[in-house]
């Protein structure tokens, strides 16, 4: 498995974190994903994707204790690393190049 290639869902998760201000945790990520894609998202799938992205070095995480957050439970916050820009850029690039010249098809 190539370490740099991104799955579609992983890409979506990264973009959502970017939108949410480079650092976030599962609840807002799920809410934003559902709002943007208009589809129900399984929290478990988001967790698995986050962990996998962390393993690929595209995310880092830190634990927020109840004392810090004022919530009764800990949260795990994920932040984008600098390494994320390269795969996102190339993913966007390859998608755009695939679409290049095909836009008229969509109009029909």
């Amino acid at each position, binding site marked *: 498995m190539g370490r740099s290639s991104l799955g579609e869902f992983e890409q979506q998760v990264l973009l959502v974190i970017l939108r949410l201000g480079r650092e976030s*945790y*599962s*609840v807002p990520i*799920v*809410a934003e994903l559902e709002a943007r894609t208009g589809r*129900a998202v*399984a*929290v*478990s*799938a988001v*967790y*698995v994707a986050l*962990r996998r992205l962390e*393993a690929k070095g595209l995310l880092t995480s830190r*634990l927020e204790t109840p004392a810090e957050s004022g*919530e*009764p*439970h*800990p*949260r*795990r916050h994920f932040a984008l690393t600098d390494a994320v820009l390269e795969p996102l850029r190339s993913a966007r690039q390859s998608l755009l190049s695939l679409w290049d010249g095909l836009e008229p098809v969509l109009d029909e």
Partner: protein
Amino acid sequence: MTVGGDGRRGTDASRSDETPPRGARWVLCRIVSGPEAQVVLGELAEGFASRRARAGPRAARRWYRRQVWGFALRAVAVRALSSRGEEERMSRFEDVASDVRWALRGLRKRPTFTVVAVATLALGIGANSAIFTLVSSHLFEPLPYERPDELVLIWETGRNNMEVNTVSPGNYLTWRDETASFEDVAAYNVDVATLSGDGPAERVNSSLVAPHFFNVLGVAPALGPGFDVASARMADAMQVVLSHSLWVRRFGGDPTVVGRDVRIDGRPHTVVGVMPRDYRQPERSLTWQTTELWRPMLLDDSREDRGSRYLRTIARRAPGVSVEQARQEMTLLGRRLAEEYPEANAGRAVLVRTLDEYLMGAVRPTLVMLLIAGAAVLLIVCANVANLTLARGEERRSEFALRSALGSGRRRLLRQIIVEGVVLALLGAAVGTVLVYAGASGLQSIQSRYFTGLVDVGVDWRVIVFTVAVAVWSGVLFGLPLARAASRPDLRAALVEGRARSGGGARSGATRNLLIVGQVGMATTLLVVAALLGRSFNRLINVPPGFEPDGVVAFSVTAPEPTYPDRASILRYHRDLSEAIAAVPGVEAVGIVSDLMFTTENMNADVVIEGRGVESGDAPTVEFHVVVPDYFGVLGIPLLAGELPDGWRVGAEVPVVVNRRMAEMHWPEGEAVGARFTMSWRPDVVHRVVAEVGDVLDDGYDGVADPTFYVPLAGMPRRRMSYVVRASGAPEDVVADVRAAVTLMDPDIPAGDLGLLSEMMAESVARPRAASLIGLTFALIALMVSTAGIYGVLSYAVQARTREIGIRSALGADGRELVSMVMRQATRLILVGLIIGTLGALAAGRAMAGLLFGVPSWDPASLFFAALVLGAAGLLASWVPARRAVAIDPTEALRSE
């Protein structure tokens, strides 16, 4: 607002709305664990709260459940991430998944191997599932009564023997009223009743029961109130409870049947209940398990009757009283009763048996034997599939070598082989389970015909769990030899020599030889077991029973009391009927007896022989039957001494006939004829022995001839009698006319159990017949599978030696020499297998000695037979490949490398 993940706040009412569903949360806690668990639980609770604020509590709860479901589906992945150091575990899961995919792909690529292996496994695993289906119903299905483990049967023993015996009303009432060990004791009896009115008269199995009988069992009628236990007046005795089957058959399942009058044995009875559909009488005999009507038996007036023994008793242990304590109390009570009433009770003991022991005791040895046979077949199957995979493994040597060269560790290879084995076994198990499922109704009929109708057989979750467990176990088992062989693949040999195999290497060669020996051994054991059972069954049905059943038709009738109120009318009925039957064309002779041989019914009496000076308390117990003496002629029972009496007339002394056993036992000097005795329960009637006849096996082929005497019908007229009719031609031809003659005599008295005596006797050996058939089936499967295994291995070995054989024959070795060279190897293996199998058979024979009849467990004939069959099959299986080897053209053989 947010709600805490621990969900311990708020009142009950608000809690159910404000916190995630408890059940789902509980499940989630089981899925996620480790340091991340609090994060997952908390964040999900937070999500729940925000959803609840947006879409309401119902939607939020649904969402939460769906999320938990998602976590469950990704359980392995989630678990990996919720504990750290997860990467490795995660990848292991993915590895196993890829092993499974790889295994499936491999199986698809070799369809012949797959089909053969799956079919063999389906046979082995399916057979075990089927057996387990039978066994588990006996192990796990409770008997169909309330808290059945509390139920016991109480019997007396006969004098001078320890066999179970029925109980007198007086003793039963003492037990019922004076014991502390039991919550309650109820007597019952079996009987055949004639049901008439509402259609043709019909004889049905019936039971006379103490009114509280069903209360002791803890089973209530499905319809109607049942017997009125509180008022036990004679008027209430005219009540009847119907079985579900009788209710449907005779009354069309009419719910208004309760309160209706029916005629039983000529008297009107009121229907007071219908039993549930699955109710069965707690009887060992399959016939009496289907008792179809129950009438109350009022015994309180029989308190003084301690001599006539005709009751069975069932009791429920009081809370906290063990079976052992109950036994102790009954032993003491038995001694007391023997002292108080020595005439009736001296020399007798009381036996307490649990219901389970009584009902299932006879069935269990067969089931245990089945389990063992099934396990043996499975081992043979595993050995066979192991051989197949080993042979296939040889073809895959280069694959394994390449894999380990590319960095697959030894463990990885092992795991892949085991996964392949388990996948294969699970496929076999799936096919096997489908077969068992399809044959479930067949199993049910085997169960109810040969074992017991008391519990139902079905494929349930236990069977599935068992099957999967067996499959996984077999998969590992038959994968092991290949795993062993492959774990140290000789890389150089495999890569450099390529296809130049040298018989698959000494290691796996030895493994395969071992498997062959094991298969032959196991198959030998099974074959010996089957031979033992078959021979024992054969012995059993060839025991001379002391009479000639062929050509005899039998049936029974009951003369009802209202129409035939006294001795004279009963006697007249039987006399007229026997004359009418004798007049039926094709009938040669007619005899009458109180109870047919090979039935469980028996009448016993304590006899006090004149001039012996024996206290009646020490009087020996003997069996007796009431007959019209033509009976002996009809059945070919030889007259040994004296002259048979007239059955229809007796004087002041009742003339009786004794059998040889009784004559030898009590008049060893041959002075039986002329001797006198009385029965302890009617001391005023003197019986004089006028004749001696041959012994009859009354209790079945495996029984012994008990000391017995026969009383002429006129000396003891009975309503219910069985008729034996000898036909001059084929007995089947007279059946219809006999039935018509019975109905013509009295339309209210039907001929019950009308049929051929020989067929009734065959029924009595149904269980041993089943055991020998099942044994034979398993032995045949074992023989087939292991022969195929031997053939497979040897033909593979020959194929691997093609080059060698080619060289040898090019050098001038002749065909016979080559054949014997190949077969020598096979013969050695088969011989070792036979020896091991014979040792196993000796052990198995000892274990199943209780199932055998007239055959020693080390029966040389069975051992010889098994060795012969297996030896022949094994040699044939090796001869074919040997012949093929010789037929190889030397040049071809050399070129093939």
